[in-house]
C-alpha cells in the first residue's frame, strides 16, 4: 500500500500526471462545493442567532464530502455522520431536513422516499456496520447497489469500526469505508488516536485494500471512490479510503478550539483550500469569471434560504406528536400517556 496520498489537482490548481479533466465535471463539483460552504456558513450563523442547536461545521472538508458521493449512483446508499451535511445533501437529503434536525425537530430525520441516505449518526462509530448490513442486503438481493459510509479519524478507535471492517472483509460485501481524517477528534490529534502511521493501512489486516488520498482534492477523492465503487459493484468487495483533510473550525459551535490547537496549524491548511484550487483551474481554462462565481453563489444562497424559510415555517411537534413515531401502531399504554401529555400541555 502506498503511503503517498493520491493527488490529481495540486493546491496551485495544476493537474498532476493526468489528462486534463473536462470543464463541466469540474464546474459541477465546484458549484457543489460552493453551495456546501455557503450552507456551512449559514448554519453556523443561524446557530449563533439561536436558531439552531449545536452545529458541526465541515469547512475545509468540502472536497472530501463532494468527492465521496459524486461517483455514487442514485440507488447507492450513504450512511454518514453528524459532520457530513454536504455529502448527504449532494446524495439527495434536502437542506431543509438537515436544518430541521439541527433546529431540534425530529422530522429532519425523514428524507423523501427514494433517497437512500440514513439520518446522520450522532454516536461515533456505531453506523459503519450498518453500511455493511445494507450493502450485504443489496448483494443478497442482487441489485448491484453499494453502500458508502463516512466517519472521522476518531471513529476508527471504536470497536465497532473493527467489527464493520471485519464483516465486510469476511462476507466480501460492497461497502466503501470513507474516513475523513480531519486531523482532530474534538481536542485529540490523530496521532493520539492510533499508533499506526495511517488509518488506510488498517485495511490490510482485514484483507481489504486501503487507499490514501488528498482529501482537499476533489478530483482525487472522486477518482479513488469511483475505483472503490466499481470494485464493489463488480463483486470485488470492500475498500477503506482515508482522505487527508482538516477541520478548519471548532469541533462544533460549542467548542473553543483555541484551548487545544494553535492558529498557525489552520493557516497551512487554508493554503490548501479545496475550493481555491478548482477555481484556479477553471480560471486558467477560461471557464470562470466573477459573473459565473456570483451566479452560482446567488443560486446556492437562494436554495439555502428557501430551505431555512421552509424549515422555520414548520410548527414544532406538539405534546401529542412526540408519541407518533415510537411504533407502527401506538401501544395501549402509550396512548394513555399521550392523552396525559396532551392534557398537561393545555
Amino acid at each position, binding site marked *: 500500500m502506498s503511503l503517498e496520498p493520491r493527488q490529481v489537482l495540486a493546491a496551485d490548481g495544476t493537474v498532476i500526471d493526468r489528462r486534463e479533466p473536462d470543464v463541466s465535471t469540474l464546474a459541477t463539483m465546484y458549484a457543489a462545493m460552493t453551495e456546501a460552504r455557503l450552507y456551512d456558513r449559514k448554519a453556523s450563523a443561524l446557530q449563533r442567532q439561536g436558531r439552531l*442547536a*449545536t452545529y458541526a461545521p465541515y469547512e475545509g472538508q468540502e472536497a472530501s464530502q463532494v468527492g465521496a458521493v459524486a461517483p455514487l449512483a442514485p440507488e447507492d446508499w450513504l450512511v454518514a455522520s*453528524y459532520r457530513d451535511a454536504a455529502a448527504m445533501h449532494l446524495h439527495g437529503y434536502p437542506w431543509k431536513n438537515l436544518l430541521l*434536525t439541527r*433546529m*431540534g*425537530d*425530529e422530522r429532519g430525520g425523514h428524507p423523501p422516499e427514494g433517497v437512500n441516505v440514513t439520518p446522520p449518526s*450522532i*454516536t*461515533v*462509530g*456505531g453506523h459503519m456496520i450498518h453500511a455493511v448490513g445494507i450493502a450485504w442486503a443489496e448483494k443478497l438481493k442482487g441489485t448491484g447497489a453499494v453502500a458508502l459510509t463516512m466517519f472521522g479519524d*476518531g*471513529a476508527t*478507535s*471504536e*470497536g*465497532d469500526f473493527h467489527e464493520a471492517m471485519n464483516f465486510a472483509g469476511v462476507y466480501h460485501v460492497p461497502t466503501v469505508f470513507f474516513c475523513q481524517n480531519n486531523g482532530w*477528534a*474534538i*481536542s*485529540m490529534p490523530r496521532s*493520539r*488516536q*492510533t499508533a499506526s502511521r495511517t488509518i488506510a493501512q488498517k485495511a490490510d489486516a482485514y484483507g481489504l485494500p486501503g487507499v490514501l488520498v488528498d482529501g482537499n482534492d476533489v478530483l482525487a477523492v472522486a477518482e479513488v471512490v469511483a475505483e472503490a465503487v466499481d470494485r464493489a459493484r463488480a463483486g470485488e468487495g470492500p475498500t477503506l479510503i482515508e482522505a487527508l483533510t482538516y477541520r478548519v473550525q471548532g469541533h462544533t459551535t460549542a467548542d473553543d478550539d483555541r*484551548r*487545544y490547537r494553535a492558529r498557525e496549524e489552520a493557516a497551512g491548511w487554508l493554503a490548501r483550500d479545496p475550493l481555491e484550487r478548482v477555481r484556479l483551474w477553471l480560471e486558467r481554462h477560461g471557464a470562470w469569471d466573477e459573473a459565473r462565481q456570483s451566479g452560482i453563489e446567488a443560486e446556492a444562497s437562494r436554495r439555502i434560504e428557501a430551505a431555512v424559510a421552509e424549515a422555520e415555517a414548520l410548527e*414544532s*411537534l*406538539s*405534546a401529542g*406528536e*412526540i*408519541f407518533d413515531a*415510537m411504533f407502527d401502531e401506538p401501544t395501549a*399504554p*402509550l396512548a394513555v*400517556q*399521550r392523552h396525559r*401529555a396532551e392534557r*398537561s*400541555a393545555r
Partner: protein
Amino acid sequence: MSVMTLAQALNSALDTALDDPRVVLMGEDIGTTGGVFRITDGLQRKHGSERVIDTPVAESGIVGAAFGMAIAGLRPIVEIQFMGFSYPAYDQVISHVARIRSRSRHRFTAPMVIRLPYGGGIGASEHHSESTEAIYTHIPGLKVVVASTPENAKGLLLAAVDDPDPVIFLEPIRAYRAARGEVPDGRYVTPIGAGMLEQRGSDISLISYGAMMRETRDAAHRLAAEGVSAEVIDLRSLVPLDADMVVASVEKTGRAVVIHEAPLTGGYGAEVVALIQERALYSLRAPVRRVTGWDVSVPLRLAERHYLPSTGRIMSAARDVLEA
C-alpha cells in the same frame, strides 16, 4: 467553605481525590480541554498526563482498561462524555465491572467510578439528553448515586472513589452550572446509601433525585403557598436505596409522589413505589403517583418541553394524591 457550582464542586472533588496516588482519571478530551463540561479543567496540568489521561474515542476500551487498572490496585475514575455514549461500554460494565467480585469470590475487585453526565433540558442533539439510570440500577453489583447540590456532589464523588466497589456516578447536566451552593474545602464524604431529607412536611412526600430536584423543590414551595406541607426527599443514592428514610416519610405523610425524568416503564420510580407498598401500604391514604418522562425517545430541542416533567405536572399529581 466556598460557594461553587455543581461543576466546580466536582472539579474540586476530583482534585482532592487525585491526592491519592492510586487515583487516575480517564476519558475523552478530559486533559487539555478539561472535558466537554470542563469538569476536569486544569487537572491534567496539575497532576500530569499519566494520571489525567486523554483516551481515544472508545468507551468500551476506556471502561475495560479502567477495570483492568482497578483489578491491579489503582482507583480509576472514568468520564464518559454523555450517558448516551456509555452504551458501547455496557458489556464491560455488566459482564465484568459488576461481577468480578462475585466471580472471584472477593479475590479480585473493581473499585472504580464511572461518571455519567445525564439528563435533558439543554436542547441538545440526539443521545445527549438520556436518563437511563434504570439500566444500571438493575444490575447487581453496581452502586448508583446522583447528587443535586454542589455539596453532595463533592462528598458523594469522594465517597464513590473510596468505595471498595464500582460506582456509577450520575451528574445532572442541567444542574452543572445552575446549582450553586456552599461547599466545604478539602476532603469529606457524603455517605453512599443515605438519602437526604431536604424539607420536613406532614401532608405528602415528594421523592426524587438529581436534576429533577429543582422542579420537586419548586413544587413543594408552591404547594406550601396552597397550605400543603410537603416533605422533600433527595434520594441521592439509588443503589443502595435508603429504604428506611422513604418508609418513615410515607408512614408519616401517608401520601407520596415519585419524580424522575427517565421514562415511566421500568423506571427507577417503580422500585420506590414497590418499596412503599411492601413496607408502608397500610399507612397509605392514596395510591402513590409517578411523575416521569414518557416512554418515548427524548425529544430534540423544539419539543423537549413536552417531555421533561414540569413543576406543574408534579403539582397536579400531588393535588390528585391529596384529594384522593
